[in-house]
């Protein structure tokens, strides 16, 4: 099994403006994703995140605290799943089940030698 972080990006503010039907479609898509993950592996964690305008960033040797995310862009990370799946194709198949309005990035989670013992 490999472990992947599935990062979800969408345009901020989208969620407040969607109607009830669309909300239900999004929920259905996430349930399909979770079912696919459960069938082929397991979900370690997952959550939706507050909009990027609620983010706080620490940067530089002075640990300067600033308002906003790492990078300002049209699409912002709005949620994630941490999953264990057999391979990238399974992860891609799962990610295809998420709402088509998302941009989804799949990142392998790596162990850091000398730090992780498990």
């Amino acid at each position, binding site marked *: 099994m490999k472990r992947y972080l599935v990062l979800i990006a969408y345009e901020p503010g989208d969620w407040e403006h969607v109607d009830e039907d669309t909300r239900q479609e999004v929920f259905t898509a996430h349930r399909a994703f979770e079912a696919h993950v459960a069938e082929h592996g397991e979900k370690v964690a997952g959550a939706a995140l507050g909009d990027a305008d609620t983010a706080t960033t620490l940067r530089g040797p002075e640990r300067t605290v600033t308002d906003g995310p790492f990078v300002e862009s049209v699409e912002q990370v709005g949620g994630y799943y941490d999953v264990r799946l057999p391979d*990238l194709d399974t992860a891609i198949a799962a990610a295809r089940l998420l709402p088509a309005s998302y941009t989804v990035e799949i990142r392998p989670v790596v162990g850091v030698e000398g730090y992780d013992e498990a």
Partner: protein
Amino acid sequence: MAARKAPLLVVDADPEGGAGVMADPGDLVEDDVLRLVLMCCHPALGPEVASALALRLVVGVSTADIARLFLVPEPTMAARITRGKKKIAAAGIPFTVPAADDLPSRLRVVAQTAYLAFTAGYAPGSGPDLLRADLAGEAVRLVRVTLAVRPDEAVLRALLALVLLQHSRRDARVGADGSLVLLPDQDRSRWHRGEVDEAVRVLAGLGPSADLLTESYRLQALIAAEHALAPAAADTRWDRICAAYDALARVSPSPMVRLAAAVAVAERDDPAAGLAALDGLDAELPGSHRLPAVRGELLARLGDDRAAIAALDEAIRLCGNEVERAHLIERRDGLASD
């Protein structure tokens, strides 16, 4: 999945028949060939990384030769191949045949990857072009290897016909002095007849396809076949070529297709009709030397030498390739001295 080391295949391609795939050490079954091709041509790899990996691991081409094909220094190519292998291991790209639903789209990526490698051999370079055209033959082998395990795949058959027809002209397109020889001026006896015949046989078994990529390859192959089958340039069936370009423009619209179609219209009708067909292309092909080169040629045929020279001057200014540039300069100087 753990980083599984991909086997290195050695392929013995017979230009007249199917490719024979030999395994090293000798126990690879056909499914393994398909797995390996699909792993190297995974859409999660960049197209240039994928084509290099496929040539290296599937066809067994040396890193030095792949570097020459893609016009990059050998260490750059070695790093590119290493990066590809690392991504396969780190991202968990599997050594498997995907589900039946996904296979057609994955095989389209294989076709695109092979075609990218093939066209690299014909990309203008400063090195000796003939040598690189021979390396493009390695991409033809990649298509054959994949076809050997998926013989009914229309996208691969259409691509095989297309690359065979383009490749069959390799010896005739460069003159003894290294200059570019355009299609109408090529010595047709130097075209590889066996490759043309094979491509025509493959094309005969292919009907129109609903898949856009397959149909685009098929139509381009049909156009190339019209050239290949004309006994002399004057015998070319431009009416059929124009019809194929019209169909191609619907399947895969692009300014380069429109430019090629305009040339065909000029040949079928007259230079004025060709010039009219160039209208509106300037905005879509900014910075391309090919548009003013075609315009200059058509103006010259209409007898408007002054406008032709101006267009050729622009083409010469924009052209980055030595061989093509030399050809344009020769054409302009011929007009200027009249």
